[in-house]
């Protein structure tokens, strides 16, 4: 598993696998939007009707939400609450933790049901967890390998100054 303080690195191949899994879950659970967020609040991937959604804010608030409920869990002697569910008038949000590090968010309306979402999320979570296992293994191998050069190794002070111009 990826440690809580290590950088998360995403490669093209694993990203494509994740997108395929999210698309499949979207179809099978009959939901509106699905997104995957790092526990630190970074959006990893999104699928479905995302055009009118502020996914960056959603990602950050979801991570805040998981962090706050995680804090609550510890106070009562639980490790974490692995599933959260918010019920609205039209739309509902189902949030679950995958592989201890990433958060899977499913937004659905009356075309689906909590039972169906839970069932499909459970299966997809296991598949996603194994992709993240591979990802962790790969990024560890790459960081150890002597000939891998970080694309940021050559960053100069000028590059950084240019960002602010």
């Amino acid at each position, binding site marked *: 598993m990826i440690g809580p303080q290590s*950088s998360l690195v995403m490669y093209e191949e694993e990203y494509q696998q994740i997108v395929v899994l999210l698309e499949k879950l979207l179809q099978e659970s009959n939901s509106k939007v699905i997104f995957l967020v790092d526990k630190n609040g970074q959006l990893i991937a999104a699928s479905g009707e995302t055009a009118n959604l502020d996914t960056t804010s959603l990602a950050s608030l979801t991570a805040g939400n998981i*962090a706050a409920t995680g804090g609550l869990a510890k106070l009562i002697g639980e490790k974490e609450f692995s599933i959260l569910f918010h019920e609205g008038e039209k739309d509902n949000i189902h949030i679950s933790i995958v592989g201890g590090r990433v958060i899977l968010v499913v937004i659905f309306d009356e075309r689906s049901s909590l039972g169906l979402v839970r069932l499909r999320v459970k299966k997809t979570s296991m598949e996603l967890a194994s992709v993240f296992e591979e990802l962790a293994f790969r990024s560890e191998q790459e960081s150890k390998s002597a000939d891998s050069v970080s694309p940021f190794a050559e960053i100069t002070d000028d590059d950084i100054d240019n960002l602010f111009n």
Partner: protein
Amino acid sequence: MSFINYASREINCKIVYYGPGLCGKTTNLQYIFNKTAEESKGKMISLATETERTLFFDFLPLALGDIRGFKTRFHLYTVPGQVFYDASRKLILKGVDGVVFVADSQEERLDANIESLENLKDNLDEQGFDIEKIPFVIQYNKRDLPNVTPLDELSRLLNERKVPELEASAMTGEGVFETLKAVAKLVLNDLKKGG
């Protein structure tokens, strides 16, 4: 920690503004939000009480531009400064890449600054960070007010590690972008080292 996405060619980093209550953390973010071009910023979110005191956090996503073909995104967060929100403060430090300590330069807030800095050290330590190594800058805010502690005294009391320190007045915006730039520089340099 930072999120490097080779698929979308993006680097995401998290910066947290820390400091005692009413020192100007939210004001820093508001100024950055107001002065940043529409296409470079997302929505600013403030989870605040009815009296505009930060309850959980403020959040501002910024896209600064490209660096070596990677889009650089910074997610800025503030913590609630009031002493009794410590449980929330700890949560926001999770996965942080760089910290800005905003000190309130007013004489009567000197003890509050020291207390908040100690609290930051404890909380970073609890999250497994090394306060001696994490990218860190100090901003002496409210320099425009009349009753401020002299700079050398603040520096002696708050900046043991001799990290970059900047004078600011977040209300007028003086020093705000300089502070952001200073911390961004340290974070990107850290990334360069393969952090």
